[in-house]
């Protein structure tokens, strides 16, 4: 058993010198043991370091191996020197072996290197300097950091490159480094007590940390993954994390509540919903979602108070509605008005609209004969109806006729099958289905009875609306 001494836990050059000689002499890995100065090593081995150090002989290995070994050697795993020597022998035998990523030894060494790279990255990121009075006229910056691996030397280049014109020291438990603007100096490990305990700028930094945090999103797991708790002790801003998380929920609830004040239930608030509704109406005026816009005069949008609790949905505008641009103003509309009055419902408190917003007709001479909208047209136009309903949020909706019921329920159904019972619309709203007033105009038998039945339906709905209030 040969024991080899290394000057430091990250002594790559020392390891390389020994390993080169050993590899050239083809010494198998199990005959070699490694000892870091100042650490306990293999007690039973004999020092064999000098014999192999004599004479430099070249040994070529791929660049990738040097990079890998340089990283992996900083790991705190005591087996790293032996693993790397074992890998070196493999690489000497088969230089391309490093590309075999499924090989267990290569995987193990790569895992070491990866852990070291992560630790280095975190040190670059999480070191926090604190300002102290310097010896000369300038200021000095001192940080305390606790890395997992032997990375302080490897990390020093980054800090020199970045803070070239500053005086700084980074203290760690095993090794401290100091930069005076020209030269990097090392000293033994330190303790936290030797580092300064605060810096006035930290309060400003904490304010920034608190302000840049968006309480509407909370992803604590994502934060913990990238900034594990072990680093928190040395980062001033982490003192705020607990209170920020606790406050986040309240802050979001408060924000949503505050913006809800803009919604329709008062004077001023109703105005802004009305503004959205006007925009919607304007947009709908230019609607070309289906072919009906070609022949119709204009889009007939719904009308009524935007905070209405009751919504009537008809089929589509008729001839007169198409010309006037308003829903339910023709003969059917007049009949509806009469029935509503008989049932004790105030039409001015209800929102009245149609399932399809353009008039569909067949031209017969000079008259335009009503034609029933097909399923595709209903589906296209539901886009507008959905928006109207989302805005107005009626507690109760009345579907007048099968087309309206189709639009609201999302499937074709007959009025008679669902008449007189509460239904649920696709968006979850309570819906009652009854006949369309134009049916009452068309029907020849039992005209009076049908009208009374219609008014009865409306009375039931009025009572239900009261009950809901």
């Amino acid at each position, binding site marked *: 058993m040969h024991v080899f001494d290394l000057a430091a836990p990250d002594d790559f050059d020392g390891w390389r010198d020994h390993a080169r000689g050993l590899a050239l002499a083809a010494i198998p890995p199990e005959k070699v043991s490694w000892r870091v100065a100042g650490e306990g090593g293999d007690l039973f081995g004999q020092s064999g370091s000098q014999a192999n150090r004599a004479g430099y002989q070249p040994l070529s290995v791929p660049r990738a191996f040097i990079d890998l070994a340089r990283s992996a050697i900083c790991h705190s795993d005591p087996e790293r020197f032996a693993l790397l020597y074992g890998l070196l022998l493999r690489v000497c035998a088969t230089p391309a072996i490093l590309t075999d990523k499924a090989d267990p030894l290569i995987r193990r060494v790569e895992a070491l290197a990866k852990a070291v790279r992560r630790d280095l990255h975190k040190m670059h990121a999480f070191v926090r300097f604190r300002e102290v009075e310097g010896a000369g006229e300038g200021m000095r910056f001192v940080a305390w950091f606790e890395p997992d691996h032997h990375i302080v030397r490897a990390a020093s280049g980054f800090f020199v490159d970045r*803070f070239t014109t500053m005086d700084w020291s980074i203290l760690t438990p095993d090794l401290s480094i100091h930069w005076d603007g020209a030269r990097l100096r090392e000293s033994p490990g330190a303790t936290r007590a030797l580092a300064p305990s605060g810096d006035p700028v930290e309060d400003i930094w904490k*304010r920034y940390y608190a302000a840049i945090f968006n309480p509407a*999103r909370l992803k604590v797991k994502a934060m913990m993954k990238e900034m594990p708790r072990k680093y928190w002790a040395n980062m001033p801003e982490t003192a705020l994390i607990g209170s*920020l998380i606790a406050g986040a929920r309240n802050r979001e609830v408060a924000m949503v509540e505050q913006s809800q004040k803009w919604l329709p239930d008062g004077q001023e608030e109703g105005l802004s919903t009305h503004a959205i509704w006007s925009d919607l109406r304007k947009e709908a005026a230019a609607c070309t979602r289906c072919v009906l816009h070609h022949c119709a005069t204009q889009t007939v949008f719904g009308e009524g108070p935007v905070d209405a609790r009751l919504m009537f949905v008809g089929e589509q505008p008729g001839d007169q509605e198409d010309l006037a641009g308003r829903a339910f103003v023709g003969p059917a509309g007049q009949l509806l008005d009469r029935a509503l009055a008989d049932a004790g419902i105030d039409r001015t408190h209800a929102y009245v609209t149609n399932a399809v917003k353009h008039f569909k007709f067949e031209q017969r001479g000079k008259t335009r004969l009503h034609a029933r909208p097909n399923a595709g047209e209903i589906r296209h136009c539901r886009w507008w109806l959905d928006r109207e309903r989302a805005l107005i949020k009626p507690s109760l909706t009345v579907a007048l006729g099968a087309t309206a019921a189709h639009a609201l329920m999302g499937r074709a159904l007959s009025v008679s099958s669902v008449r007189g019972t509460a239904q649920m619309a696709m968006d979850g709203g309570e819906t009652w289905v009854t006949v369309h007033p134009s049916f009452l105009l068309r029907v020849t038998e039992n005209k009076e009875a049908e009208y009374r039945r219609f008014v009865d339906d409306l009375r039931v709905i009025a009572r239900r609306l009261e009950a809901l209030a």
Partner: protein
Amino acid sequence: MAQLSIPEKLSILADAAKYDASCASSGAIKRDSRGGKGIGSTDGGMGICHAYAPDGRCISLLKILLTNSCVYDCHYCINRASSNVRRARFTAREVADLTLSFYRRNYIEGLFLSSGIIRSPDYTMEQIVEVARILREEHDFRGYIHLKTIPDADPALVQAAGLHADRISINVELPTSAGLAKFAPEKDAGQIDRAMSGMKAAIEDGQDARRRYRHAPRFAPSGQSTQMIVGADDATDSQIVARAGTLYDRHALRRVYYSAFSPIPDASAILPLQRPPLMREHRLYQSDWLIRFYGYSPLEVAQAADEKGMLPLDIDPKLAFALRQRGLFPVDINRAPREMLLRVPGLGTRAVDRILSTRRWRRLRIEDVARLTSSIAKVRPFISAQGWQPVAMGDRADLSAWVKPKVRQLELFGG
């Protein structure tokens, strides 16, 4: 109004900047402060996240507004003219000093400066450029600077910004021009587009000059990026992905950031009250990755979306694409080209590189693949390997139930 202290201003102006998604310092050139008068370096790689906030986002830069006063009235923005927030304004020198004092303590990688529009776009742009000039010229600051430019500003000012900054960005704000017209009435989609293509030309000119003359000044060496807000208007995921695809293609953008619309205090009534699920933003980023690193075209990503054009929230877009294109699978892990390996759900670019590298040595068995990936369970139904065929798995109607993640993350504030 009483004079605000620097910390008070910082609170207001950082708070106002937090709705900008980007905080990245990636893609910079390599630069250090050796031989200079000042401090600062950039690493040329992924950038460094110096801290993480509980919203899971990285804090890499000092991200602030010069002022949150604004003459524009964009509905989605907390700083719009009609909003009732506290206003504050930094001087250019205050921002420069703050940046340096944070930088010296290793809190940040640099500065990300944006601003509300005060007086005029030109005046505002001048102030932004002045901050960068103080940092670069007076302090020889060599850290990262990201400047947000204003599309309507004088091209000469934008040119000056590009000479100081590592990265330049112009926000497209909303994925569709109809949305922009509705929510940001003073902004003009055409103008934003023109500004971005102008920026692209300037960046290319700069690169060209560097090739001819070694000392030609660098112009925005980290390129340009942009941001759009998701969930404020009703643009679908397919529309958003298509728009991003166009932006990458036409303006050679480095990054498109998506910011899930957050309910903001004092919101305009025209906006939705509820935020879209954060997962939606995540799925968009995943689809963005597919386009940038996995060789998917925006059209292929759109195939992962449902008939309404929305990406599924419960599974990632790559898996959704695979479930819809089952004819492409199983992929033979030992023979398939790189492009096909990249389409296998569960295989990332690194895993694919490892597979390509390893299969020169042996025919991979399923256990080998398991060693090269983080989770074999997701990969298994979509590949064949030595001694492994996903028997009839590809034909199962309930395949998605097999591969979907079992645990759903609960909406923290749902209901």
